[in-house]
């Protein structure tokens, strides 16, 4: 697998899962454009790490929840690179509230960054993918499983996955592949903040059937594969990366053990 000479944009590419994807794509030879929201110093650090792998790197500040910021970001990409081969839609944010506590501001903020941004970025990126390309959306198992106070993010990720399928078919004739990945709980600072905010239990995530927690690098490896020629016949798919955890019935087992053996 080689991505040598490709130009890749990773939204939210400076830290966590995004950072791992940035560095993996750089490992495979891609020049990387790191979009970041607030922390320039963190973005510069990741860009430096990428350059040490022998590729070029560039950072762009933009809140992808705002359409005009996305426009400016792609204007800069067109001016500096003239084209784009890979788009990884990774930037994410969200208001942590239950469905009954959600207000429209929190809903819009979450949907704009997690779902609408992919539509707008894909529209702009497709124009720069003159010789085909790859797009990968970073979803979450929260799109189909129910996690506490994850309502807005979970719904936004469902929309993101549907959009991934629509784009996959619409862009296929242009030689652009579109797929997604849906990680389970990944060991990042964002997960620590999410669990700490409501003292959520972590033990169920800490050991998957594959052993240990999913790491950012596990996600990055799949993303890089989906961007490669070897994955050319995979279209519109959402690859679950959770060490098999979602195939088990951890929650059911937990309830059963609390309430006694009800097997017949």
């Amino acid at each position, binding site marked *: 697998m080689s991505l040598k000479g490709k130009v890749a944009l990773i939204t939210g590419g400076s830290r966590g899962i995004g950072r791992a994807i940035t560095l993996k794509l750089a490992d495979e030879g891609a020049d990387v454009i790191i979009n970041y929201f*607030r922390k320039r110093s963190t973005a510069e650090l990741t860009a430096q790490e990428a350059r040490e792998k022998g590729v070029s790197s560039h950072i762009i500040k933009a809140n992808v929840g705002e359409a005009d910021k996305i426009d400016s970001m792609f204007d800069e990409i067109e001016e500096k690179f003239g084209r784009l081969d890979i788009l990884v839609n990774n930037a994410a944010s969200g208001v942590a509230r239950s469905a009954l506590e959600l207000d429209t501001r*929190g809903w819009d*903020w979450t949907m704009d960054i997690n779902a609408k941004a992919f539509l707008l970025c894909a529209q702009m990126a497709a124009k720069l993918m003159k010789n085909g390309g790859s797009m990968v959306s970073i979803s979450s198992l929260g799109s189909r499983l129910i996690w506490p106070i994850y309502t807005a993010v979970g719904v936004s990720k469902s929309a993101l996955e549907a959009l991934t399928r629509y784009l996959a078919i619409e862009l296929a004739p242009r030689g652009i592949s579109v797929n997604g990945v849906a990680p389970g709980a990944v060991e990042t600072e964002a997960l620590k903040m999410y669990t700490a905010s409501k003292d959520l239990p972590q033990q169920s995530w800490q050991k998957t059937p594959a052993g240990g927690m999913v790491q950012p690098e596990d996600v990055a490896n799949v993303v890089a594969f989906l961007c490669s020629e070897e994955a050319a016949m995979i279209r519109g798919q959402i690859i679950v990366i959770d060490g098999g955890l979602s195939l088990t019935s951890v929650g059911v087992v937990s309830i059963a053990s609390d309430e006694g053996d009800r097997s017949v």
Partner: protein
Amino acid sequence: MSEELSIEETVKKIASRILRKTDINFSPTTSFKDFNADSLDIVQILVAVEDTYDIELDDEELQNITNTAAFVEYIERKVAEKG
């Protein structure tokens, strides 16, 4: 904007716009929660302040700031450090 107004006045203007309130006053005894700010309001205030002064605020340092007067002092320090 920042050339015409003091940092305190500018931050107050930003907070008033985001919190949709006209009666915001910064003091050692008030926090943004007293103005019913939620986590999204706080993020939007931080981003607006960072963009206005082209500075980077440290989330860990912000954790130790418990009132609005200290917040303004922190911004003033960050702007001064930038030079």
